[in-house]
């Protein structure tokens, strides 16, 4: 009996420091403080840095972007560098890149919710916004790439005057469904997550206009137990669905490649390859956004170093998987004995014209990623910012290697050709980058950038079984 009493005593003792979890919010702050802190940025005056970032982004989004878009649509796909044999060029590279950026956002917000990682509450909203905006950018590329953008509606199963229907056996057709669904579902998820936070901003608003806007967006949310009960159910269901999408959308993009007969593309590893590559690239973008916004929005005690450390670890894990896949690709190219595949692989690293991208892939995605093993690097925010940028560049060059590398030298030497992007390729990419950052900056300034109610629920003050949350007897009373 005395032993059992001792175990009861033991349970009441706090675990040693090294076994304790890092707090979600530093400084053991109360719920009111959290509310003030997290809604402060959306309510304060627009800071100077915001304008400094917003003006060039808005210029790219509202001048460069439409100019390149209209010129391209009026002239034709030839305005880009795409030409025989490189029918896919920067447009597809950028499409995959943007879809990739989106994926980590969903992974953080949905998969980490399902695995009950409380630290995700502080960065989930930022990740979701990244998803929504980058999927929108991604979807644009194939829509223009079809050549006659005004016939895009032929891709949807709508009765048309030709009496034709889409060909549902093609992965390119599946892409239409996948990207549209991804955009819709991630937007719904993003919006639904914000409803309780809109209610917070509504209740805090000082001016009539602000009150009207947030009352409209909050849709009469009161936060009753009944509402939360159903909301939580809808949230967990949407998280499950979004997690399915993480693994589906990029797989389908991968299928676009592996159902073709080209050397290297025709590989069963491609769907997985694209999913992991997407997640890795997205974690890179997440590192860039988190390290900078944390400082600029004064959220150091909310987006703690421990949270960024975890994102960096996830980047490392996905980076290691992608390294394994590179190894597998090279191994299969050698072991498969297909001379064309060996040829293409040899040219990735020892060919002419594009070998720089191949070495960039090795240099960044394989070598630089290993830096994340070190705790010193993971706690150095400047280093993480740079590594995040490098990962994005590295993953962009990986997609270039995959797309152009297989196309420019196929089975017939008479068919070989080179690919050079034109200024319209570059302009459109700059334009989409501008549009992404413009939308993101607007989101950061005007919407609840951190899921306020979720963070509050993850603090000890919000836990009814914690002494700080009002538990009297300890444990579950």
């Amino acid at each position, binding site marked *: 009996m005395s032993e059992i009493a001792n175990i009861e005593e033991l349970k009441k003792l706090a675990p040693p420091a090294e076994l304790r979890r890092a707090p979600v919010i530093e400084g053991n702050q109360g*719920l*009111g403080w959290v*509310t003030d802190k997290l809604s402060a940025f959306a309510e304060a005056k627009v800071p100077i840095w915001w304008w400094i970032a917003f003006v060039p982004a808005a210029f790219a989004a509202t001048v460069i972007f439409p100019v390149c878009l209209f010129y391209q649509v009026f002239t034709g796909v030839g305005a880009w560098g795409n030409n025989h044999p490189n029918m896919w060029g920067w447009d597809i590279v950028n499409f995959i890149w943007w879809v990739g950026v989106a994926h980590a956002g969903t992974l953080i917000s949905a998969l980490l919710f399902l695995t009950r990682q409380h630290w995700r509450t502080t960065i989930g909203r930022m990740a979701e916004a990244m998803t929504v905006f980058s999927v929108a950018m991604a979807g644009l590329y194939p829509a223009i790439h079809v050549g006659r953008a005004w016939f895009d509606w032929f891709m949807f199963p709508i009765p048309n005057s030709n*009496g*034709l*229907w889409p*060909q*549902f*056996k*093609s*992965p390119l057709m*599946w892409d239409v*469904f*996948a990207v*549209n*669904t991804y955009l819709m*579902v991630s937007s*719904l*998820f993003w919006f*639904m997550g914000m409803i*309780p936070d809109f209610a*917070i901003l*509504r*209740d*805090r608003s000082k001016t009539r206009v602000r009150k009207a806007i947030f009352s409209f967006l909050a*849709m*009469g949310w*009161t*936060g*009753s*137990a*009944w509402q*939360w*009960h*159903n*909301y*939580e*159910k*809808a949230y967990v*269901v*949407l998280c499950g*669905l979004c997690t*399915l*999408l993480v693994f*589906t959308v990029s797989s*389908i993009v991968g299928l676009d490649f592996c159902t073709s007969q080209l050397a290297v593309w025709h590989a069963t590893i491609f769907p997985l390859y694209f999913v992991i590559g997407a997640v890795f690239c997205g974690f890179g973008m997440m590192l860039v956004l988190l390290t900078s916004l944390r400082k600029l929005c004064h959220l150091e005690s909310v987006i703690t170093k421990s949270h960024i450390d975890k994102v960096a670890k996830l980047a490392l894990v996905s980076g290691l998987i992608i390294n394994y896949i590179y190894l597998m690709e090279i191994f299969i190219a050698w072991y498969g004995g297909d001379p064309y595949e060996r040829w293409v692989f040899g040219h990735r690293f020892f060919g002419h014209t594009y070998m720089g991208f191949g070495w960039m892939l090795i240099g960044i995605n394989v070598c630089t990623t290993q830096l994340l093993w070190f705790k010193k690097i993971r706690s150095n925010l400047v280093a993480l910012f740079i590594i995040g940028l490098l990962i994005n560049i590295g993953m962009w060059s990986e997609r270039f290697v995959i797309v152009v590398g297989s196309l420019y030298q196929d089975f017939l030497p008479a068919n070989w050709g080179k690919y050079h992007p034109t200024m319209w390729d570059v302009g459109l990419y700059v334009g989409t980058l501008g549009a992404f950052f413009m939308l993101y900056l607007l989101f950061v300034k005007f919407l609840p950038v951190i899921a306020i*109610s*979720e963070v*509050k*629920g993850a603090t000890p*003050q*919000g*836990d*009814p*079984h*914690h002494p700080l*949350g*009002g538990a*009297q007897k300890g444990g*579950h009373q």
Partner: protein
Amino acid sequence: MSEKAYGLMAEFNTPGDLLRAAEKIRANGYRKWDAFTPFPIHGLDKVMGYRNSLVGWVSLAGGTFMFLNIVGLIWFANAFDYPLIVGGKPMFSPPMTFVPAYIMMIMGAAFGALLGMFGVNQLPRLHHPLLFKQRFEGASRDKFIIVIGANDEKFCATETKQLLASIGGANVEIVEDQE
């Protein structure tokens, strides 16, 4: 403007206090009451006696509806209305419909979850008597509020007020129903 009572409202400071108070109110036999909190409280569902939310079923229905719809659409489009031979494959076979149907199932289920949540929670709503209350703004900040409805059979302005005060509720106030 007719002003009758909507209910009595009491504030609590911590989620733990709210849970204990909710248990007592339920034990006292009240039925038409609700707790308003800044975030979902673990264990409150049980105290309120809620069963599994309907939202999951709405989502399932939405997903199933879309899945079957797309399978049917593909059969209609590629096998019936305009038979299309691709690579010598059959006009219609269930496995080939899977990917688009699966993707659209996710879309249907997501809409089901969101619209189901709106439906069950009766959102969006333009008016709620509690939203006129200055003190109710605490419910989205750091206060935990219990409201006992005036339409409850056991509701009595004085007795209910005493009960709310005795279980630790602060600032017990009457909420008017402003029509």
